[in-house]
């Protein structure tokens, strides 16, 4: 594709600016980095690719001085670096945009950018700070209002603030830890443009990701990590996504899911003219109607924030319905409580798995009984029977391959993929007739995504109905039998999955009515 980032780099043959040699970092029970050696060159985008937990963030935190390596050494321009803290890394020209932004929402853009390296003097000269921010934002073509409050900015702009933070401190090496995970597709395109310009300016970029197509698109070199080790470093021209996926996971991975033919059964779910408002009483869903048949996955496509969340929460009873109806197996379930909806045979995988899906301070076993702790399978005469809780947990953890397979661990200590498996195990364990999955693979790595896709298709083949809400068009396209596109709370069109194209859906998602 014609993105500037993919064009050859004229400086890639320069000597490395930053070099890691034999870095090892151990945490209790894991070797997060195991004898890692890597280098970064000016004007080059070096992608670090690896599944969640591969040790990418740990390695970057070592470069940034947040962690101390147990063994090994970091070199900057050939000289060994003694990184006793972030301030030392900053002083040596290393900048990092963290996976979770390090911003202070109540402060302004300028305050956030200069924090810790403010213009000199006892007084804080906010005008001078804003002027300097303005200057670098123009120099790097990263337009931003220095006086805006960071909490009011979109995620994409917040990331821009983070990048500017690095350049305000004169970074020559920029670490981007999973920068695309939080962005919308168009914001990702913007970011890639920015990266291309920085590259042309001679910045060395470390681009962390677990998304294959992105890495193929922007990287000049790709290093794959697995379980703390470097598996291999290669050039994008000499590899392909399938090989990268296999190296990342350590086995043959099925990138393209195999789907059995669509055999629709009778209509199970019938949503009629649903209208739902948000917290501020603003209507977010404006008369949505669709049907889902047994043995069908209905994909709900759309740009984030077009009413998907409100629609789903209204169906499961978490949000009041203003008007319209939800029929499930012919029965009107509009306005039932979440528990009644669940009892009726509807399971739900919420999009915020840590906030809504799990109680992070509960064990895996406890999380597995959240929905039916008082039901006949678990409770006896109003008391929880912990033998049954353990039995169920042991069984489900094994069946769903939750790692580590220890039900008495706190849910908060599992990786994202394993947390999602716990939710999946709980919801599937209720033997639902209808499953609502909201962004079920968001932020997960290839292996976990493959697993969850397989489970969703299994459920469909058993003749259940599935509503899949995802922001990833690829996911929608590869799983759905029918695709409903939502825009501003209305269904623009419902198209058969095998006839839909990326481009066609993209247009509908932006509100273009079908012309023919």
């Amino acid at each position, binding site marked *: 594709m014609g993105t500037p980032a993919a064009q050859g780099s004229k400086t890639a043959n320069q000597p490395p600016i930053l070099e890691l040699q034999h870095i090892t970092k151990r945490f209790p029970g894991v070797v997060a980095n195991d004898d890692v050696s890597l280098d970064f060159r000016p004007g080059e985008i070096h992608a670090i690719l690896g599944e969640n937990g591969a040790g990418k963030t740990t390695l970057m*935190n070592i470069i*940034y001085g*947040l*962690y*101390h390596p147990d063994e090994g050494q970091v070199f900057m321009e050939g000289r060994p670096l003694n990184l006793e*803290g*972030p*301030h030392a890394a*900053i002083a040596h020209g290393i900048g*990092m945009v*963290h996976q979770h932004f*390090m*911003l*202070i*929402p*109540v*402060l302004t853009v300028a*305050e956030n950018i200069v*924090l*810790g*390296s*403010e213009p000199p*003097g*006892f*007084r*804080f000269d906010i005008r001078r700070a804003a002027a300097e921010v303005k200057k670098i934002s123009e120099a790097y073509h990263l337009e931003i209002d220095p006086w805006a409050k960071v909490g009011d900015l979109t995620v994409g702009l917040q990331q821009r603030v983070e990048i500017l*933070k690095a350049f305000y401190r004169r970074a020559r090496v920029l670490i981007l830890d999973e920068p695309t995970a939080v962005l919308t597709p168009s914001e990702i395109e913007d970011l890639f443009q920015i990266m291309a310009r920085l590259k042309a300016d001679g910045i060395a970029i470390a681009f962390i990701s677990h998304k294959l197509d992105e890495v193929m698109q922007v990287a000049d070199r790709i290093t794959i990590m697995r379980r703390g080790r470097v598996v291999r470093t290669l050039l994008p021209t000499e590899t392909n996504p399938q090989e990268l996926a296999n190296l990342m996971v350590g086995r043959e991975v099925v990138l393209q899911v195999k789907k059995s033919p669509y055999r629709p059964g009778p209509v199970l779910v019938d949503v009629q003219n649903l209208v739902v408002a948000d917290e501020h009483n603003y209507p977010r869903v404006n008369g949505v109607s669709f049907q889902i048949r047994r043995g069908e996955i209905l994909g709900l496509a759309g740009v984030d924030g077009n009413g998907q969340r409100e629609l789903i929460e209204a169906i499961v009873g978490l949000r009041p319905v203003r008007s319209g109806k939800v029929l499930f197996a012919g029965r009107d379930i509009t306005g039932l409580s979440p528990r009644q909806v669940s009892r009726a045979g509807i399971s739900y995988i919420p999009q915020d798995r840590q906030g809504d899906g799990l109680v992070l301070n509960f064990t895996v076993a406890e999380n597995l009984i959240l929905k039916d702790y008082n039901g006949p399978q678990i409770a006896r005469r109003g008391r929880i029977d912990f033998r049954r809780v353990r039995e169920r947990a042991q069984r489900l953890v094994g069946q769903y391959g939750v790692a580590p397979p220890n039900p008495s661990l706190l849910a908060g200590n599992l990786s994202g993929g394993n947390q999602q498996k716990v939710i999946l195990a709980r919801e599937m364990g209720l033997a639902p007739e209808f499953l609502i999955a909201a962004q079920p693979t968001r932020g997960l790595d290839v292996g976990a995504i493959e697993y969850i896709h397989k489970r969703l298709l299994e459920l469909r083949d058993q003749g259940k109905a599935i509503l899949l809400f995802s922001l990833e068009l690829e996911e929608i396209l590869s799983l759905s039998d029918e695709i409903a596109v939502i825009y501003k709370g209305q269904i623009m069109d419902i198209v058969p999955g095998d006839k839909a194209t990326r481009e066609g859906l993209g247009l509908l998602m932006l509100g273009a009515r079908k012309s023919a």
Partner: protein
Amino acid sequence: MSGLLAIFGNMQLWASTLSLSVPLVLPALGGTFSERTGVVNIAMEGIMLIGAFFAVFFSSLTMNPWVGLLGAVVAGGIMAVIFAWAAIRLRSDQVIIGMAVNIFASGLTAYLLNTIFGFGGTPVNTPMLPHLNWPWLGRIPVLGPLLNDQSILVYITLLLVVAGHFFLFHTRLGLRMRAVGENPEAADTAGINVYRIRYLGVLISGFLSALAGAYLSIGVLNSFEVDMTNGRGYIALAAMIFGRWTPFGSFGAALLFGFASALSMPLQSSVAAKNLVQMLPYVVTILALIGVGGKSVAPAADGVPYEAEK
């Protein structure tokens, strides 16, 4: 009706509002600094008490109230550093450690009062901090009677409120303090020493609380009594919350609570239910906190210990 007018029209009411507010304004300002860096300092009550005791102790020992004031601030500072060490380095629960400091301070000062000064209490000739009386100031209408003939600490307090506002919102250190209280991780990655900033915040609150204690014991009186702070450290925390963690806001809220106290005094003589009227300052405190309710804007990392990962 005319009774009420007599009460509210009396400049004495407004002057005593100001003087009764001082021991609330100072710790409220201190608490603002501590909590802006992310440390909930319940220990201000105890630190005030320590300040009150050592003010009298050093003042009577040297017969110089200024040495008393200095002694109060040093003793309060030491107590604050101990609290800060437990709260910041040991990452203990800040509320529990704070309560422990308060119980300790109450016991320690009662014990020292008895063993050092004995049954008769603190010496009657303990020198007080001066009251300032300028005839020219007294002649200015309204403001004159309000501001004139107050303890020197009243004027210092007014200056500290303005200085505190400037420091917190217009200096580099103030910006860093606010950043640490909102998101210590972000501050850390920006190269700021989170621990040092938090120590500074707690130390400032310790100094200001000790000043408030000294005001009680050698500013308006010249003696120390057991538990003489009487919960002012807690009311100051309420004032800080009501004042939305800002120096001017805390000042205003403390004035309101001081006014309630000042009002309860003349009312006590004119109303039958004396004990009910005495409750007024506390009732106002509770009502204020209920009013501020869900809208509070506490620093995001207030009360959360920080641990840098290594």
